[in-house]
C-alpha cells in the first residue's frame, strides 16, 4: 500500500484479464484482476465497449418515439426504462395519469422485478456451479414471463406505458386477472420451496457465506444502489418515496452481511413482496379509463425522474423543445454499482470473482452508453464518435 491507501504495482504478482468478449463474462465487459496467489488484491471493471448511442439517437426525436426507444436500452428491465421516460414527460407536462393505468404500470413493474430477480438467482446459481437450481428457477420465471407476454403482447419489449397511461391492449379483464392470480400462487409456492431447499443446503451456504462482503460504510462510500445496498442493512427503497406505490403495503427487505449470501437472500425475500404488491394491485384495480389524452405538448426545461427498478435506482432526464427530446440522459443502476463490483472482488479468491461481480446484479448492456472518441488517422474529421 502507498500513502494514499492504494495498492502499488509492486504488490501485484500477476494480472488476470478476463474479457472484453469472454464466454464467462456473458456481456462485453472487461475485468482486470490483480492477484497474489489466487487472492484478488485489486480489480478493475471496464465498461463502455458496447456503446449504442441511444441518448444520441433520442436527441431530436418526438417524445413518444424517444420514449419507445428507451425500452430498447435493456432486455430485462425494458418496462422500467419506458415507464421512467414516460414519467419524465408526464412530470414536465403535468399530465395526470388515470389510477387504473398507474395500477397496471405497477403490475408490469413488479412482474418485471419478479422475472429479473429470478433471473439473478438463476444466474447466481449458475455461477456457483449449481445448474439444477438455475434450471428450476428458470422454470419458475417462465410464469412471470408469460404473464408479461399476456399483458404486453411480448416477452421482452412490452411497450405498455405511453405518455398519460398505458396502451389499450394492456388493459386487464377478468380472464387476465384470474391468470395473474394463478401465476402469483404458483410463483409464491415454488419460490418458498426453492428458498427452503436453498437455505437448507449446507454446501451452497458454505460456498456463499462471507464471500465478497461489503460493509454499510463501504456501500455508502461507493454509492451502491438497489438490493445490493439493502443487502448491507441500509433500508433504502425508492418505492417508499414514489407516489405510485403509496396505495400498496409492502416491506423493504434488508440483510446484514452484505456478502453473496445476503444478496441472494435479498432477492429471494423480495419476490414475495413483489407478489404481495401485484395481488393488492389486482384486487383493488380501479375502474375507468387507462389513458389520459387531454394534454398538450409544450416546451420544458430539463426534467428528472428517479424510480426503483429491480437492480436499483434508474435515472432519466430530458427537456422538450418543439415536441422533441433534448439533452437526454439515462443512468442505470449498474453504472453506479461498478465501483461496488470492483470493491467486492478485493480479498476474494479468484474463483469467486465472477460471483462477487454477479452479486451486484450487473446489466452491462444497458449500462454501456459511454462515448469513446476514436482518433482515426485516415479521416479528415479525426474526432468522430
Amino acid at each position, binding site marked *: 500500500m502507498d500513502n494514499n491507501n492504494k*495498492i502499488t*504495482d509492486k504488490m*501485484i*504478482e*500477476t*494480472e*488476470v*484479464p*478476463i*474479457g*472484453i*468478449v*469472454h*464466454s*464467462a463474462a456473458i456481456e462485453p465487459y*472487461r475485468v*482486470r484482476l*490483480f*492477484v497474489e496467489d*489466487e487472492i484478488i488484491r*485489486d480489480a*478493475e471493471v*471496464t465498461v463502455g*465497449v458496447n456503446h449504442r448511442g441511444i441518448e444520441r439517437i433520442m436527441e431530436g426525436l418526438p417524445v413518444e418515439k424517444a420514449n419507445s426507444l428507451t425500452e430498447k436500452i435493456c432486455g430485462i428491465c425494458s418496462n422500467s426504462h419506458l415507464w421512467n421516460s414516460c414519467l419524465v414527460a408526464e412530470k414536465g407536462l403535468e399530465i395526470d395519469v388515470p389510477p387504473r393505468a398507474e395500477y397496471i404500470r405497477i403490475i408490469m413493474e413488479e412482474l418485471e422485478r419478479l422475472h429479473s430477480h429470478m433471473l439473478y438467482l438463476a444466474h447466481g*446459481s449458475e*455461477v*456457483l*456451479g*449449481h*445448474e*439444477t437450481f438455475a*434450471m*428450476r428457477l428458470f*422454470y419458475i420465471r417462465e410464469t412471470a414471463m408469460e404473464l408479461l407476454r399476456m399483458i404486453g403482447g411480448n416477452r421482452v419489449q412490452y411497450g405498455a406505458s405511453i405518455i398519460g397511461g398505458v396502451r389499450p391492449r394492456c388493459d386487464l379483464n377478468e380472464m387476465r386477472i384470474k391468470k395473474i392470480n394463478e401465476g402469483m400462487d404458483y410463483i409464491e409456492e415454488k419460490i418458498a420451496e426453492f428458498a427452503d431447499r436453498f437455505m437448507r443446503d449446507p*454446501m*451452497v451456504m*458454505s*460456498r456463499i457465506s462471507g464471500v465478497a462482503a461489503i460493509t454499510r460504510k463501504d456501500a455508502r462510500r461507493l454509492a451502491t444502489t438497489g438490493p445490493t445496498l439493502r443487502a448491507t442493512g441500509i433500508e433504502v427503497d425508492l418505492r417508499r418515496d414514489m407516489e405510485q406505490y403509496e396505495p400498496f403495503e409492502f416491506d423493504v427487505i434488508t440483510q446484514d452481511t452484505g456478502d453473496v449470501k445476503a444478496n441472494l437472500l435479498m432477492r429471494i425475500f423480495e419476490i414475495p413482496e413483489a407478489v404481495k404488491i401485484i395481488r393488492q394491485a389486482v384486487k383493488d384495480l380501479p375502474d375507468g379509463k387507462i389513458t389520459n389524452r387531454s394534454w398538450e405538448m409544450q416546451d420544458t426545461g430539463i426534467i428528472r425522474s428517479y424510480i426503483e427498478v429491480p437492480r436499483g435506482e434508474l435515472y432519466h432526464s430530458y427537456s422538450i423543445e418543439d415536441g422533441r427530446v433534448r439533452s437526454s440522459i439515462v443512468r442505470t443502476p449498474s453504472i453506479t454499482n461498478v465501483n461496488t463490483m470492483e470493491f467486492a472482488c478485493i480479498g476474494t*479468491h*479468484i*474463483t*469467486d*470473482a*465472477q*460471483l462477487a461481480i454477479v452479486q451486484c446484479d450487473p446489466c452491462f448492456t444497458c449500462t454501456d452508453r459511454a462515448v469513446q472518441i476514436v482518433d482515426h488517422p485516415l479521416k479528415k474529421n479525426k474526432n468522430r464518435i
Partner: protein
Amino acid sequence: MDTTMIISSVVAVIGTLIIAFAVSIWLPGIERKFVHARIQQRVGPPVSSPGFMAPIKFFFKQTLTPNSPMPRLYNALPLISLIIVVFILLAIIPQLYFLGALASIIAVIGLLKVEEIMYMFMGSLSKSVLSVSMPFPDLVKGAKHVNTTRSFIEELSSLRAFRLIAFGSFPLYIALFVPVVMSQSLFIGDIVVYQQLHGPVLFTVAGAIGAVVYFIGFMIFLNEYPFAIMKTRADVIEGPLLEYMSKYRAYTYITRGLLIFVLASLFTTMFLGIPPNIFSPGIMVTVAVAVIFPIAMAVMSTFSPVFTFRQFYPVVAATSILGVLALVAAFL
C-alpha cells in the same frame, strides 16, 4: 506358453479393449442424458452425442494451430493421455499379469500420476486468446495498474492441476492401498486371487470405507463438480483443455470416457476381485460398475455447487482421514 494360449491371450486383451471403448463412449451420454437432464427436468442431449457423435464430429473438423508456445507438444498431450489410460487398463487385465511389476498397484498409481501431470502441462502450454490478446487500452488515463505482468487463465488451471497432484488425489490412492494391505501384496494378480479365496474386499469394514473414499477420489480425479477446481469460472468450462480443437478435442473426449471405465474397472478389480476380461462373465460386473459410478457421480454433481479451495481442502482432508481409518481397519 503354447500358440493357442498366446492367441487366446491376445484375443482377450484386444476384446477387453474393444469392450472398454464400446462402453466408454456411452458413459458421458448416460451421465448427461439420464441423470443431469432428468434431474433438471429438461430433455438433454441424445445419449450418443457427448461420447460418440461429438468425437466423430471433431475428427472431421478443421485443425488450426493452437495459441500455444509449443503447439505440437500441446496437441500431442491428449493422445499421450489416452495411451496412458489404455496402459492402466492393460495393467489390470488378467492375461497381462505375467508382466510382473508392470501389473502392480505401483505401476497403476504411477500411470495415474502421469495422467494427472498431463493436465498440468496442458494448462501451462495453453494460452487462449480469451485472456490476454484482446486489444484494449489498459494504458488509458485512469487505468488502475499499467504494465503489469499478465497471466493466462489456463496457467491458473495448471497451478490447480499441480495442487490436485499434490494433495487432491490422496483419497483415491489411499483407498487403493486398502486391498493391498489386506492381501499383503502389491501385485494385481495376487489381490485378485486373495479376493477369490477370501471374498471381496468391499464386503469388509475396511473395504466398505475404502470404497466410499475411492468413489470420492474418483470424482476428484475426474475433476467433476463439485470438485472441479481445475476449471475456474473464467476458464469457461474446459480449463487446460480450452485450446484443443478438431481431433485433439476428440481425443480428450474419448480419454475422459475411457478413464471413467478404467477407474470403474480398477474398482471392480481391487474391491470385488473381478478384473476386466472378455472371456469371463465378470465383465458384466465391470460394465455395471462403469455405468453405476458415473450415474452416482452425476447425481452428486447435479445437487452441488462448485467448490473453491475453502470447501475443497476440508473435504479432501476429511476423506483422506477416512481413508487412513480404512487402512488401519485393513491392518487389523
